[in-house]
Structure formats: structure tokens, C-alpha cells
């Protein structure tokens, strides 16, 4: 399961019918221990109502089409969870409630 930060969205009018209605978000993968964004991105189909700045969990491949709402969507990456917190080696490395500036780009 990939963990990344939602940093944007994609608009497409002319698309395959199997993507009709899908919300497409740009997710940039993060290092789990430091939460530093990697120099990469993926475009995911949102299945949980994620928004910009959220740290999310995505599934790849056929796993991206396993819920009633995603099974008929031609997705190769789907967002299935929004993270509240991450604990690694006994320390809380991420706490959504305490995070300031999730979207540094929003000023």
C-alpha cells in the first residue's frame, strides 16, 4: 500500500466511459519515516473523499478495483484511506490533528 500526499487534481472532459465520474487526484509518494515527498507522482482515483494536503493510502493494480464504488472504474491506483496518524518505533511521526501547514503551497 502506497502512502502519499494529495497535492492536486486533474481535469479531463474527453475520457474513456469507464473513467466517467471518477475524481482524479495527484498523489506524491512520501517517505514514511520522514514524510518527505519523493520526486514522483501518480494520478489516483479517489474512493474516500480525500482532499488537498491529506496523507492517503493507495492500492495499486487490480487491488485498485476492489470496492463496490471502484470496481467499475478503470483505475490502476485508488485512494482507500485518509491517515490520522503514523507511529513508527514507538514515536508518533504524523498526527493529522496537530499538523500545521499541510499545504505549504497554499500560504
Amino acid at each position, binding site marked *: 500500500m502506497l502512502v502519499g500526499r494529495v497535492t492536486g487534481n486533474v481535469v479531463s472532459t474527453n475520457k474513456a466511459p469507464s473513467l466517467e465520474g471518477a475524481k482524479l487526484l495527484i498523489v506524491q509518494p512520501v517517505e514514511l519515516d520522514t514524510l518527505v515527498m519523493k520526486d514522483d507522482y501518480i494520478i489516483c482515483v479517489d474512493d474516500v473523499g480525500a482532499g488537498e494536503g491529506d496523507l492517503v493510502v493507495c492500492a495499486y493494480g487490480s*487491488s485498485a478495483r476492489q470496492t463496490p464504488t471502484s470496481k467499475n472504474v478503470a483505475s490502476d491506483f485508488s485512494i482507500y484511506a485518509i491517515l490520522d496518524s503514523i*507511529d513508527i518505533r514507538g514515536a508518533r511521526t504524523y498526527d493529522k490533528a496537530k499538523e500545521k501547514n499541510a499545504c505549504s503551497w497554499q500560504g
Partner: protein
Amino acid sequence: MQLARVIGSVVSTRKSQNLEGLKLLVAVPIDMDTMQEKGAPFVTVDTVGAGEGEIVMWAGGSSSRQTEQTSGKPVDSSIIGIVDFVDILGKRRYDKGAGEVR
């Protein structure tokens, strides 16, 4: 299947209904030559009740949906076993009870 050590957990309240009840853990890959952690941590679904510090076996892709708990769920990585011993070429490399053996 690959080996990894459980080093933490993640919590999510807002998630796909199909993920309800599944425990999400953070694990880091284990290099079988040295039995040391090697590589970047990742999130995986627990199906066996693994806890922090334990070395576990995990499966990725559609194989991760072959367990009772994850069948039909939107999961692409699952912990499917807790490792007791690792023997390589007749040598015990890891013993859960005694810690790591070189």
C-alpha cells in the same frame, strides 16, 4: 513472499468501508543475508495479529487478497505469517525467541 520487520502502525478513520476492521501496520524489508532492515518502510495489512518488532512474511499484489480477512478487499500488501526461525544453508539466521543469530 518476503520478510519484513513490523516497526509501527497507521491509523485511519476515514477510509473505504471495505477496509473497516483491518489493521494497517508499517513494516520495513529485511535483507535475508544480514537479517538487517534494508529499504524504505511501507504500509501493509495485518491478517495474523503481528506486533511491533516481529519479523513477518508478507505477500503483495493479488496474492495479498487470498486470506479470509482480505478476500475481496482493496488491499495490495498483507502480512500472512509471523516468522519463528530462519535457517539458511543449515545455519540458524534468526530465532524469534533468542533474537537474531548470525
